């Protein structure tokens, strides 16, 4: 039939046209959900995270500034303390030296014996004292008390001698001297009583005491503190820059009074805080170099704060996770709502389509019914007349079968029109107490022959505990037969069909008819409940079976659903209420 072919082709292409925009729309929608997810995630994240970040940053910098300030103040205080201690110490030594020079006459001190006596006395008082020496104005030794009596030199050209000559008192830089012992010298000038000229009392001291003052500054392993003379000569041993008397390159030292602190990034020293203070009355400058690692002391101070930072990170992590999950949940909720809405629309469209097709079918059936009735009655009348007058015609034997054939054809047509009419409205409904299991067994009875012929295994799994229900036996039979027939058509010879009944969750009945046949492709699945939709070969299916079944189950207040996996099989699930609340469909 060429006409049917064209219709089918047209339907096919129409189907594709309908389906492809749906696919595109799905892809677009998925993209939309993804971007929505990203947007919500970042919006919520920004709203919650940015203020937290700002507060954290502000707190951190504020805390950092406070700690740096505190650290600087502490360092300054320590350095001042060391400087003052050192100055006081030196002053003490200078004063005592001057005192001895003034209370003892030059003559007395010139004698080694009395000088030694003074030396012994002073040595007890100041253990770091190495020796005492009286020099004349030419820088030559007059007398000496100490362990190095045999070594003598002329000091006239020494810096400290010249300074003592000019200023009256001088403290020398640290130097090893002839005796190769690190020491410094305090020299005081004393006028010759009653005549021109002067003499000088020289006292040399061990540098150990100096070192002790420097060590008073609290330092970590990587820091350094030392005395330096001039701009580059170490006077005490530096931890990092060498022993005393070695040369070191330092930033320009402040000549101002008081401690000066600066952050430096020096090639030799590296990064750090550089503090220096001039020790008044001496050639020395106290220097402290605190490496940034010491700034890391801030970090150790921050230990508790680090715990806080750690907690903040954990909280932020949890926040991000919760944000992510909330976003996911919101988007999923939106997606579900939209899906449900679309399904509802699709469902109502489907129902509307079925209803309109039903009305169309009803109209057609009606129009055909009347002429069909006339043909039926005319043929019946012919038969009646022949039967009334058996003798009237010799051709009776020939006519009667023809009339019967007309009646039979009308009968067939009637079946079709009645089925069509029943598609939307059923004809006679008779609700009675039935056992669905029994109805199914009857249906199976109809099919037994075909099952045997095709060697199809039937697995009946009927729950005897299911209650009786009020429904229409004939209609249910029709539905079960339709679906079971489809299952038989779907399976291969030797396949399997399963029919099972159970009590549904809501209290009704559930009937599942499944097969292990070819399965139904997705695009076909959408249309299987539509009237005249069939995939069976021409002449085998009317395309009304499933749509009728759909209508019937709906009228009986139940639902019918289909699940199908391609090449795996199909399952029809019918749920029925225990009491059918019969309703009009498409009216």
């Amino acid at each position, binding site marked *: 039939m060429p006409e049917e072919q064209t219709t089918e082709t047209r339907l096919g292409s129409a189907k594709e046209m309908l389906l492809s925009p749906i696919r595109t729309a799905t892809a677009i929608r998925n993209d939309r959900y993804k971007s929505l997810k990203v947007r919500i995630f970042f919006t919520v994240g920004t709203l919650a995270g940015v203020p937290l970040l700002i507060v954290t940053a502000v707190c951190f910098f504020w805390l950092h500034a406070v700690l740096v300030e505190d650290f600087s103040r502490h360092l300054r205080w320590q350095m001042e303390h060391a400087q003052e201690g050192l100055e006081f110490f030196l002053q003490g030594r200078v004063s005592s030296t001057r005192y001895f020079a003034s209370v003892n006459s030059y003559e007395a001190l010139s004698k080694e014996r009395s000088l030694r006596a003074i030396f012994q006395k002073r040595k007890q008082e100041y253990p770091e004292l190495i020796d005492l020496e009286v020099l004349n104005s030419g820088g030559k030794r007059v007398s000496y008390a100490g362990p190095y009596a045999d070594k003598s030199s002329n000091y006239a050209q020494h810096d400290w001698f010249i300074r003592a000559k000019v200023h009256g008192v001088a403290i020398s830089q640290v130097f090893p001297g002839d005796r190769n012992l690190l020491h410094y010298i305090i020299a005081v000038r004393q006028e010759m009583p009653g005549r021109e000229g002067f003499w000088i009392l020289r006292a040399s001291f061990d540098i150990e005491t100096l070192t002790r003052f420097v060590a008073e500054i609290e330092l970590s392993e990587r820091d350094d503190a030392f005395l330096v003379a001039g701009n580059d000569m170490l006077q005490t041993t530096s931890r990092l820059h060498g022993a005393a008397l070695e040369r070191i390159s330092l930033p320009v030292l402040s000549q101002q009074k008081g401690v000066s602190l600066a952050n430096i990034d020096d090639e030799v020293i590296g990064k750090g805080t550089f503090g220096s203070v001039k020790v008044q009355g001496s050639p020395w400058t106290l220097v402290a170099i605190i490496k940034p690692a010491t700034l890391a002391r801030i970090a150790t101070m921050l230990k508790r704060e680090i715990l806080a930072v750690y907690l903040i990170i954990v909280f932020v992590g949890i926040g991000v996770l919760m944000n992510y999950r909330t976003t996911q949940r919101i988007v999923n909720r939106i997606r579900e709502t939209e899906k449900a809405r679309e399904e509802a629309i699709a469902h109502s469209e489907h129902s509307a389509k079925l209803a309109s097709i039903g009305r169309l079918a009803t109209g057609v059936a009606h129009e055909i019914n009347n002429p069909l*009735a006339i043909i039926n009655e005319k043929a019946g009348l012919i038969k*009646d007349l022949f039967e009334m007058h058996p003798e009237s015609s010799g051709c009776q034997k020939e006519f009667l079968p023809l009339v019967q054939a007309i009646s039979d054809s009308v009968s067939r047509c009637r079946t079709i029109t009645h089925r069509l009419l029943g598609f939307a409205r*059923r004809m006679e409904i008779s609700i009675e107490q039935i056992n669905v299991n029994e109805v199914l067994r009857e249906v199976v009875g109809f099919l037994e022959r075909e099952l045997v012929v095709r060697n199809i295994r039937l697995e009946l799994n009927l729950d005897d505990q299911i209650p009786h229900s009020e429904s229409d036996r004939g209609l249910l039979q029709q539905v079960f037969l339709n679906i079971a027939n489809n299952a038989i058509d779907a399976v291969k010879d030797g396949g399997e069909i399963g029919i099972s009944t159970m009590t549904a969750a809501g209290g009704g009945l559930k009937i599942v008819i499944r097969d292990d046949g070819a399965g139904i492709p997705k695009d076909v699945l959408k249309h299987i409940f539509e009237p005249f939709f069939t995939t069976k070969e021409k002449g085998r299916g009317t395309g009304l079976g499933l749509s009728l079944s759909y209508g019937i189950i709906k009228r009986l207040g139940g639902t019918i659903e289909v699940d199908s996996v391609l090449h795996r099989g199909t399952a029809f699930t019918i749920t029925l209420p225990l009491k059918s609340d*019969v309703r009009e469909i498409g009216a």
Partner: protein
Amino acid sequence: MNRAKVLLVDDEAELAQTLVRRLNIRHYRAKSVYSAPEALEAVSREAQEVMVIDLHLPGMPGNDLARAVRQVDSTVAIIMLSGQGSMQTENWIHDGLIVDFVMKPVEIQELTKKIDRAKNEHDARCVRRDGGRGKHGQA
């Protein structure tokens, strides 16, 4: 057996006439009319026992006609004739408006069976209406 007096109402004259003829062959006293007014006129003119009314009559639906007929003569037993059954027909039977229902195209045996049952119903109604006053005479 005294076969029923039947009035067939169907706008499809060809169908109505043929059916009447077939019923008459079976010794029913059948007549046909083709519209609701004609039917009402026939009922008021002479008593009917059984009426077969097409549901889809032009101008007046079969059920309205049935109601009008029952107002004129409450004993008439009415059979509805239609292409399809519905909940409404079930309800009408339940309400006593009609006694039965036949689908088109009609099987003559089914129709005669239902007419006979309708006749019995009509007779019973007559007995109820007349009470103990004796059987209503039939021509």
